[in-house]
């Protein structure tokens, strides 16, 4: 690019035209209590980072990720230490397993992580909840990435499954993501509500056409068209629903984008700015009632992201390139004399800091009788346990937020090698979706998590 325009004059903030809270649609996220009186979370957010944690080492040393309880308090491991006092907002689930299929494999883990199905042969929980709990929201699902599409990553590199073996890439550009969410929420659209909006009539024609086409085929081609019909319904709903005023959590919807450059979305020196901006977009969208199901995917497994080039991080080293996956193969033991291992630990601390920032943003916004975090359920996850052994046992899951009262936090929960499908089922229950089972092994909720 030779034009000077692109590299100069970046705006520092994204904000809605007019900026008024009243301009932003509100999907009516009132507190809900199920018929049986149990509390539910208003929203759920999955925070993913790649390449696991320093779990049980190849030589059998104990996990350096898992926290423990001592004297009634949670003691954080070195890797989790950046969470600090926010540990009280978390349940640290130890000892979940994802089954033996593809154990030892990053892609195998990524496929099972949110689907609960070997080989990713099913819809992932975020999509299921978007279709159910989030069905009436302007944006039922929000999938944001931070360098998650680096090197053309697709397929098994992404954790959100639209259906069996079918992922769709997340949006890596926070400016584009913000525009997509908020542009229809601005008051300056020239069409008064009574005026003819061609898009409504057009979508009506489209629906008839897709339905006609659907009648002519079966199998996978047919499910492709079912998905198309879902998309038409979602976009129609955005155009036609009369929106009540924005919630109080949506006072000043704007996102700082300092350091974000849409032309350098894969430059590691911009990673911290991108992570912060994508977190802000996610939280802002949720605060404004645009969505209640979100996935924030940091990088992807086995990526080329050079974490030692992340400015301001503990592992920053201008003269030395260290990738996440490279460091994750730190060797057979937790050797602090080994640069790979110490970098790996620092990288994990960085991901935990990102998680902390997310929790802080939710905790900073009052909602109802508490904060947004109190009404949310936030799940930290990765696709393998120990990064060197690629084990699918003792998976690193942290569940944060009070889920509207469904979750009591500030504790460690031992899962005793239960299938992680049980956690997925519990998350669905916390969102008010009382499925009987989830995935291939989530036949009951995880004992001790909710209620």
């Amino acid at each position, binding site marked *: 690019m030779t034009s000077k325009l692109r590299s100069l004059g970046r705006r520092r903030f994204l904000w809605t*035209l007019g900026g008024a809270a009243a301009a932003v649609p509100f999907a009516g996220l009132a507190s809900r209590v199920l018929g049986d009186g149990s509390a539910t979370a208003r929203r759920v957010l999955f925070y993913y980072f790649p390449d696991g944690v320093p779990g049980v080492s190849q030589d059998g040393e104990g996990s350096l990720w898992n926290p423990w309880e001592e004297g009634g308090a949670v003691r954080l491991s070195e890797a989790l230490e950046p969470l600090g006092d926010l540990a009280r907002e978390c349940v640290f689930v130890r000892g979940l397993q994802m089954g033996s299929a593809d154990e030892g*494999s990053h892609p195998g883990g990524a496929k099972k992580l949110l689907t609960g199905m070997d080989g990713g042969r099913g819809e992932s929980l975020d999509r299921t909840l978007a279709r159910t709990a989030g069905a009436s929201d302007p944006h039922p699902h929000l999938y944001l990435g931070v360098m998650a599409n680096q090197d053309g990553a697709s397929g098994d590199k992404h954790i959100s499954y639209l259906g069996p073996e079918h992922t769709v890439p997340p949006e890596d550009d926070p400016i584009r993501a913000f525009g997509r969410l908020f542009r229809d929420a601005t008051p300056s659209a*020239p069409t008064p509500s009574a005026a003819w909006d061609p898009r409504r009539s057009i979508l009506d024609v489209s629906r008839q056409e897709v339905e006609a086409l659907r009648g002519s085929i079966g199998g996978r081609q047919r499910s492709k068209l079912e998905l198309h019909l879902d998309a038409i319904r979602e976009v129609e709903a955005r155009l036609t629903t009369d929106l009540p005023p924005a919630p109080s959590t949506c006072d000043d919807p704007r996102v700082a984008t300092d350091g974000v450059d849409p032309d350098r979305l894969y430059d590691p020196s911009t990673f911290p700015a991108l992570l912060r901006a994508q977190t802000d977009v996610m939280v802002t969208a949720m605060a404004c009632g645009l969505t209640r199901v979100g996935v924030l995917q940091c990088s992807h497994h086995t990526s080329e992201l050079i974490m030692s080039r992340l400015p301001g991080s503990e592992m920053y080293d201008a003269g030395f390139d260290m990738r996440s996956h490279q460091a994750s193969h730190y060797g057979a033991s937790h050797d602090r004399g080994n640069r790979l291992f110490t970098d790996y630990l620092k990288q994990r601390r960085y991901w935990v800091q990102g998680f902390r920032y997310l929790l802080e943003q939710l905790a900073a916004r009052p909602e109802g009788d508490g904060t947004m975090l109190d009404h949310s359920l936030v799940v930290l996850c990765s696709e393998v346990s120990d990064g060197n052994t690629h084990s699918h046992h003792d998976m690193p899951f942290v569940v944060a937020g009070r889920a509207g009262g469904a979750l009591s936090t500030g504790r460690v929960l031992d899962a005793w090698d239960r299938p992680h499908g049980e956690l997925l089922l519990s998350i669905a229950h916390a969102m008010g979706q009382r499925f009987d089972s989830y995935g291939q092994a989530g036949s009951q909720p995880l004992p001790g998590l909710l209620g």
Partner: protein
Amino acid sequence: MRTSTLFLSLLLLAGCGEELAPLRPAPRERQPALSADEAAARYGELCASCHGAIGEGGLGPPLSDLAMEHGALTEVIDLRMPENDPDQCRDGCAESLATFVLTRLTSEALACEAVPPAPRRLRLLNRREYAASVVDLLGLDAGAAPATCEPTTFTYDPAGRALSSVHVAGTFNGWDAAAWPMTRSGIVWTLTRALPVGVHEYKLVLNGGEWIPDPANPDRADDGFGGSNSRLEITCDASASSGGSTGGGDALDLARDLPLEARAEGYVFDNSAEALQITSVHLDELLRAGERALAALGDAGLDALVGCTGGRGACAEGFARGFGRRAFRRPLTDAEAMRYQTLAAEAPDDRAGYRAIVLGMLVSPYFLYRSELGQAQGDGTFRLDAYEVATALSYGLVGTTPDDALLDAAASGALDDAAGVEAQARRLLADPRSRTVLAAFAREWLGIEGVPDATKQDPAFDAALGRAMIAETEQFFLHVVFEGSGRYRELLEADYTFVNARLAELYGMSGVPGEDLTRVAYADGRRSGLLGHASVLSATAHSDQSSPIRRGLFVRRRLLCQEFPPPPPDAGAVPEVDPTATTRERFAQHTASDFCASCHRYIDPVGFGLEPFGPTGRWRTEDNGQPIELGGDMLDVEYLGAGTHAPFESTPELAAIVADSDAASGCFARQAYRFVRGARETLDERCAVAPIVDGFREGGGDVRELFVALFTSPDFRTRREAP
């Protein structure tokens, strides 16, 4: 398993004093039996990487004509297969796979006497195809600037101020305050135009009358009225011309906000018939892109497109039928024409009505999906109709919607026989637009699209150099196909390439000035064809070190179509960085064990041969302070398990080994087949591919003839019901 046992015992220790929940194994449901199609797919996923795509053997023993009882084979699969994870296929799955092996992998079944066709599909346009189609349908001028210049994007942020319009006016459009409207895109206004090379001055025009310099551009010049103009210098950077993620020369960049293409696992092209599907994000962006295209067309452009002045009552039906025939790539039914006529009638005025027809058709499934459904033939098969054939030819060869000549050929019956199809295929291949498609094929086949975004330690590397690397490979590929011998062999064995000043510096050549790519000969015998290209060598290396594994796998998977299973569980760590050892030595240690070597002997020794090229493809004689050892070995080039050796001393020798092999020429033909069909060939399609592969080899590897043969092969227009 050692780790999980240890883990359990640790848990038990940690759990002292707490109430123990009962330990139970993960419930394992009985795996159900598979349909025939599912069994074939599972064989491909779980077994083919070791036993071969048709059971011909490879890392594992051959399975064709296996003399085994069904029950015994079921038991072996259930308990032992796949070797790295038998739980993947148990119970009904194991039974179904045993049936598959014993009935389908037999000489009789594999004899290709009957050629079962490919499944019928709907294929969503990818970003490249979408943008090119819209530009062609609306007759949008992609810009007056040379095609090798990237367009410039103007962005204006009104800082919260509500504006009715923003225009760009300057020396490039005669200071016309109404000619170039910017489009509001979220919170900002943008306009993308290709500008001629040179110095331009301009201003932004707010609300039709308020002239201001562009706040986003600090470069100013006196405007002669006491104020200032914004100043912009365009220097056309040839290396920046291509390799953009959407390809094509579309200055409007209509696809810029559409989501990236999902790629099916194991499928390298961005046009996957299965993976591309529409979500609400797609639909939102498709509506916006259509609106932007209409805005770029303007009222005058719209009037010209409609070409009828009698008002919508008189013109809407004709326009819907005329535009619809081009957009849907077939004549509209009466009901469809009526539907769009009604849509136009609802609009407040004529132009709004025509715009609704256009926008409606641009988000219609009949435009967005290329139909390869065909007509039922009564024998369980389907036959593509003439319009579907025209569509497949057009997107397959020129990457855009069929032109009038093609639609007319479909209407006249000229595409009903192979000769007519061949004539059109040859016409399209000779059309310059085919270069866009073949460049995309080359980029994606070689996996080099991500190079400009890569991070490298080499201080000379930046995005512009990365784009130049892609441009080199594209230009080289197109040169071989269209101006050179046209032979596959030349892609590997050429002793020349195309470089600009920066690539020349990287390659250690002198005397190539400027940004334009110039043909140069390799004088030093170090490089040869694509294996010497910086794009390929960069894409298969890390930031700070080469990767013999990636480079070896590149040759095996992309050039030879040989597949490998993923590393087994606990395969162990990648070699630790030993400050005294070369990359080659470290990896040689790694694969010294028999266990690792069973696969890595095929991979690493190939990559070792490319060790003289650093992480950006720069020639080097030392690695980690140690001299580089030249050469490597290509075991079993034709098929894994063949038991052959082919040692080589240099990259040109490696290239010759690959170029001489049937495996590589067959692989190239198969990659082209996959690209055109939007999917990897299934076991059933193997018989359809075989004659194309044979023809390609017998014809001496003529790439243009291959791309014709892909559309004239007997099975091209037959389909079967989709799974």
